[in-house]
């Protein structure tokens, strides 16, 4: 019995150490969001940078001396803080006034750039850092050995929490920070220099990210995939805790780390005659917690409702119905695109087919984000579930691809109905994060369910027979279906439903007062958007002949967001343009340079800084000026 107790205690301590690590990253993210309202996607990249810098600086200062180690950790964190300042001054300061999500796109570009910079300076091989001098060993706790360094980490989390609390509640600077977090007008009344405040908060947030990374050096080898892994953890912690709430972040970190430790401790458990592998649940436990918390507490554990506009559209310009030449001109473009295969370049066919599919995907996402004002971070779920539904009907029911394609929008729409029902009850970043949580849960089911979905390998052999076997015909079918879907969604935006959807976005109270059931309208919008994303996914499956869980992974959702934002949220044609430019850029740059990520990042950054309203918006202005 005491053995069991000791095992449980050790896992509890493991959970505490994990919680501290999570909290350190999340605290900076929460702080930056609270003050600047920027969702800093590059926070994970800053963490990674902290880890790499610590590795090098400790090497420089002396791996085995106390001063070398801790000096290196501190210097690394300070460097990352300084990099944060540079980012704020050079990039973010220029776009605070741009639509909210544009800053997300800019920080996404930074992720790409930082990753390639790290690859360039440190190389691809993982780097295992030194153990901390004096804390190399373990202590005996009830006959179990527990790492000394983890004890230090357990103390570091609450220590940083306490210092932050003192800073925020016992200094003049803290008053400004809290004012900015809670009440913007009060900030203006206090007469502070907002620019300096933002810069300093960015320093502090980046410093904490860097510190979080550097402190992991004895536990975690520096490697290139940390940025995305960490950012997703940090987002979850911040949202579960309540955005802007440091205490909430601590609580959330504790909850998530302990839940993970518990799942691992349980391992395989026999229940009702089958073996349930709790250790496999670690894949998704944090997202399951996030979904549960957000459904029950729409602003996180300790968060307060934010007066945050839902999308970027509240102050959008009117969305006029297209002029008399628009549809004919679109039709001509479509016909010309359809003629492209006659040039005989089969690859052009494939690339244009991809662009068509992603254009429909982006337009379906834009339908939610733009007119709906509902930002989805997990839109790939509908795309992916659509492709899996089509694939399963094709492979398991042995129906032709033409029939299987019907299953795609149905599955995408059904999933969106289910997820959307919960999501429309939230708003802003919380809504976005709930869509992400659902998407991750869907992903993990697809990833785990080997018998049905082929697990991590996915499903292969999805090549249509019959008429669609011919790739030109398949391209035409893709073009017609995607254009048809885009056409339908555009019509819907200008139909009474679109008007009601925009009304619900602009002024939910007013919309209710004229009899519009805003939640239901938004729910239907989710379903429509999901259905067309699903159709895009189905077309994708048969174009590639195979699908894998990546089809509904975060990366695809992020790609979709990048396409929409690049094209511009405020115009209808923007997402199509964004999808084309993004897909083409990625294809073209990736083929011509090794550092394509950084180049793509710089390209996005340049576009963001030059056209803060997206490509579509820029074109519109150009037309307006001419």
């Amino acid at each position: 019995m005491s053995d069991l107790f000791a095992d449980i205690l050790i896992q509890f301590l493991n959970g505490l150490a994990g919680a501290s690590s999570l909290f350190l990253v999340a605290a900076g993210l929460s702080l930056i969001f609270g003050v600047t309202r920027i969702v800093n996607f590059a926070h994970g990249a800053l963490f990674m940078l902290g880890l790499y810098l610590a590795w090098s600086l400790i090497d420089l200062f002396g791996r085995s001396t106390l001063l070398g180690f801790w000096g290196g950790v501190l210097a690394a964190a300070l460097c990352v803080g300084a990099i944060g300042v540079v980012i704020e001054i050079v990039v973010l300061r220029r776009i605070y006034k741009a639509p909210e999500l544009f800053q997300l796109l800019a920080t996404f570009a930074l992720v790409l750039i930082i990753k390639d910079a790290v690859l360039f300076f440190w190389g691809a091989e993982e780097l295992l850092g030194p153990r901390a001098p004096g804390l190399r060993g373990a202590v005996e706790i009830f006959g179990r050995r527990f790492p000394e360094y983890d004890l230090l980490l357990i103390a570091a989390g609450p220590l940083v929490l306490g210092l932050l609390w003192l800073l925020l509640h016992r200094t003049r600077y803290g008053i400004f920070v809290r004012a900015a977090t809670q009440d913007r007008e009060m900030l203006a009344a206090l007469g502070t220099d907002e620019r300096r405040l933002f810069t300093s908060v960015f320093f502090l947030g980046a410093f904490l990210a860097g510190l979080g990374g550097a402190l992991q050096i004895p536990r975690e080898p520096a490697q290139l995939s940390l940025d995305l892994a960490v950012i997703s953890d940090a987002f979850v912690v911040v949202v579960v805790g309540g955005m802007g709430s440091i205490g909430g972040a601590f609580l959330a970190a504790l909850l998530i780390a302990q839940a993970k430790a518990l799942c691992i401790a349980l391992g395989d458990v026999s229940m009702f005659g089958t073996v349930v592998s709790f250790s496999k649940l670690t894949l998704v436990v944090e997202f399951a917690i996030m979904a549960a918390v957000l459904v029950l507490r729409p602003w996180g554990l300790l968060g307060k409702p934010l007066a945050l506009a839902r999308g970027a559209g509240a102050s959008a310009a009117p969305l006029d119905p297209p002029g008399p030449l628009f549809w004919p001109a679109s039709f001509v473009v479509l016909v010309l695109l359809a003629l492209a295969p006659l040039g005989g370049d089969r690859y052009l066919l494939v690339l244009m087919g991809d662009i068509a599919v992603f254009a429909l995907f982006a337009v379906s996402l834009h339908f939610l984000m733009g007119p709906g004002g509902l930002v989805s971070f997990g839109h790939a779920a509908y795309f992916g579930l659509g492709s899996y539904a089509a694939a399963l009907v094709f492979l398991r029911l042995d129906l032709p691809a033409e029939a299987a394609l019907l299953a795609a929008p149905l599955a995408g729409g059904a999933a969106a109905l289910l997820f959307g029902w919960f999501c429309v009850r939230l708003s802003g970043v919380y809504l976005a994060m709930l869509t992400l949580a659902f998407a991750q849960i869907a992903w993990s089911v697809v990833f785990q369910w080997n018998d049905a979905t082929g697990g991590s390998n996915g499903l292969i052999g999805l090549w249509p027979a019959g008429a669609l076997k011919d790739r030109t015909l398949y391209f035409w079918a893709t073009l017609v279906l995607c254009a048809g879907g885009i056409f339908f969604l555009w019509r819907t935006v200008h139909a009474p439903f679109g008007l009601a959807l925009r009304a619900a976005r602009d002024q939910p109270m007013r919309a209710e007062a004229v009899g519009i059931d805003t939640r239901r309208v938004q729910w239907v919008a989710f379903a429509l958007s999901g259905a067309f994303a699903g159709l895009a996914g189905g077309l994708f499956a048969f174009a590639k002949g195979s699908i894998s869980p990546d089809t509904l992974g975060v990366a695809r959702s992020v790609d979709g967001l990048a396409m929409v934002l690049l094209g511009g949220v405020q115009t209808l044609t923007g997402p199509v343009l964004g999808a084309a430019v993004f897909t083409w850029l990625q294809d073209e740059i990736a083929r011509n340079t090794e550092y394509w990520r950084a180049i793509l990042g710089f390209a996005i950054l340049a576009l963001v800084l030059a056209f803060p309203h997206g490509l579509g918006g820029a074109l519109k202005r150009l037309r307006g000026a001419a």
Partner: protein
Amino acid sequence: MTLLVAHGLRKAFGGVEAVVDVGFAVAPGEVVALIGPNGAGKSTCFNMLNGQLAPDGGTIRLGGENIAGRPPRAIARLGVGRTFQITATFASMRVRENVQAALQSFAGKSYGLWRSADTLYRDEALALLARVGMEDQAERPCGTLAYGDLKRVELAVALAGRPRLLLMDEPTAGMAPVERLALMALTASLARREQIGVLFTEHDMDTVFAHADRILVLDRGRLIAEGSPDAVRNDPTVRRVYLGAGTMYGEQA
């Protein structure tokens, strides 16, 4: 025949009683003002009528039907139009589209996915805008309008549901004096011509005494006086309540 009858309305927030046993009636074509010092419970009262808040007790009958606790959109569909204290229009739409969105909603066409919204009830929308004197600005984006004009757009939107009752929360707040009187004159004439009952809250006593047929006075959640403008002006309780909060109409100058 009364249009709206509230009876025994109660609402408390965390033990603090905001509205206690309030009852009143509004007849068709009647313009009724609800006044009282800050914190008197005007907004709470209003929000129970329009469905934003569910009362803890009491009934609200609209044409005989109890609407207490129903959601705002259901109440709107029963013929209750509404304007907001801080103007709430659909900023990304043109003026005409604001009214069209309301008309389409009331006609049950908001789930139409295909047909263009641009032409649906366009003429009706323009006619409503003409009634509030905004037909010239029908094509301007709402985001670019002057404050007074926004108020009139709101009125047109509120009228789109052919309301039997108009609830107006501080309809003239933030407007210049001339504009105030014009808007309320417009409202009162519409109400009388079309037999719409109007209940409004207001801080500006000039407006209240100039246009209200009847006045309800709230203080600390209770109805302390009710009657014609003259009766209320001379009511000693009202005078006492307002003594600290400012002066009553007619005592100035």
